[in-house]
């Protein structure tokens, strides 16, 4: 043990991480982006636009949710399960374009300043990690503005600017790749029926 110790103190501090980093340069192909998830993402221009217009989008979404709820009899008639496919298709493309949506199926955009938290490499849903760079960029991907710095900016402009303070439940992975719009609508319809049921 003591010999071991002596060696450790005399040798210059070469950590395993340094060795790995050195070796990485020798690899034939070094991908430019850091996390694989990043390679799936679009450029974030649209995402930044959405965050800047968070208040407007909040208003739009409120109208939109009402409309969907109004259509509840229609969804019911064709069956939520059957509506899932086409609605999901539209949702994926609309939200994909605006927020670079990852289809987690349990949308929290209204509580995150219209900045999709699933684009955070750590998929944090409750606020920024401790590694945000001084310039507001992400620890993992130095060229990307931290999702949560943007979320905070977006939330400031929104009407419900304290929604970002709610503690979010962990992601239910079994709901991935499903339509959040339909789920929210079905839940709201259910709630409406319950409250009107108790009122009557």
């Amino acid at each position, binding site marked *: *043990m003591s010999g071991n110790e002596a060696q450790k103190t005399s040798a210059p*501090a070469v*950590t*395993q*991480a340094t*060795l*790995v980093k050195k070796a*990485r340069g020798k690899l034939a192909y070094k991908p430019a982006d*850091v*996390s694989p998830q990043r390679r799936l993402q679009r450029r974030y221009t649209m995402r930044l636009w959405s965050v800047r217009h968070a208040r407007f989008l909040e208003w739009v979404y409120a109208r939109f949710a009402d409309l969907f709820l109004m259509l509840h009899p229609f969804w019911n008639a064709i069956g939520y399960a059957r509506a899932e496919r086409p609605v999901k298709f539209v949702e994926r493309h609309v939200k994909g374009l605006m927020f670079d949506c990852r289809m987690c199926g349990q949308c929290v955009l209204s509580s995150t300043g219209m900045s999709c938290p699933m684009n955070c*490499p*750590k*998929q*944090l*849903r*409750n*606020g*920024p*990690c*401790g*590694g*945000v*760079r*001084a310039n*507001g960029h992400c*620890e*993992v991907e130095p060229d990307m503005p*931290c999702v*949560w*710095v943007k979320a*905070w*900016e977006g939330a400031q402009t929104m009407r419900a600017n304290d929604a970002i*303070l709610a*503690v*979010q*439940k*962990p*992601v239910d*992975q079994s709901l991935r790749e499903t339509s959040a719009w339909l789920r929210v609508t079905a839940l709201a319809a259910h709630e409406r029926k319950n409250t009107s049921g108790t009122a009557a």
Partner: protein
Amino acid sequence: MTTRPPQIDENPAGVDLPLEPLPGHSSRGRLERVLRRGEFAVTAELNPPDSANAQDVYERAAVFDGWVDGINAVDASGANCHMSSLGICALLTRMGYATIMQIACRDRNRIAIQGDVLGAAAMGVGNIMCLTGDGVQAGDQPGAKPVFDLDCMSLLETVRTMRDEEKFLSGRKLSTAPAVFLGAAINPFAPPYDFRPLRLAKKIAAGAQFVQSQYCYDVPMLTEYMKRVRDLGLIENCFILVGVGPLASAKTARWIRSNVPGVHIPDSVVKRLEGAENQKQEGKRLCIDIINEVKEIDGISGIHVMAYRQEEYVAEIVHESGVLKGRRPWMREAGADDALVAERLDHILHDNASEKPVDMVKNANSE
């Protein structure tokens, strides 16, 4: 078993046993008692060994003996692989140390984490610290799969539910809940600065009872943060420990600044180190100066010393800064049986005495 008078915060029946539960305390550990008594607490970070030798852990813990109230067992910090925090805690709790087990969400999913929490609590780990963890790209195995199934906030809430409502995340009942004191990390030195105090509020709402901060080298910034924390009324519900540590040289400072995400080192600090003759000494002095400034801030309940690869200085730093005010934290002492063996070791090894009962009877008869 212990013949010596028991130390403060020690179970007289054995150092490795949990303490008497006290009303209002959620754990049966030493750290919570120290904090709730209103004493200025000191915790330190153990540099986890890259070995399967228990002795390595004990040696690294021994340098903190009598100087700290809790030892952080890090969970692959910086995404570098080391002995696991659970393993370190298993070894240290046996010896009676108060451990703070860190759990990072990077490596395990909710199933594994909840199981580990139960195991740790059963071993006598009194404090659990919930972290998100650094990204895998930062460490020695960037090809690993990042898990991040929970985040620090939902992890806090999960463990709190297990403790207070005695059930798993799924709602399944536990027959004995883990009695743990819950911790989290804060970083007042990273953007978005306005959000940081609110994020602490969020962590407290999720279950954090104490927090340890990232390295503090910018006291004015911390003061500003603490002002907002006090205004939010958070110091009543949470103990705040400030992270401090000596910088080995100006070069290290610069390296850390550009390579370790989330550590903020102002230029003045680097300048001060550069100007010094003995940079290592100056780094230590700087650390003590920061501690002296920090301990005066209203709402700070302790310090967390992270002296990476300079652990042997922790005792000096704590002593010279005088934060303990003459108090001596729990210190490992040999048990009565070990003391007895140590006392007689010379005799046993060198006097060649036969101590077999048969021989002893024979000797007695022949006399």
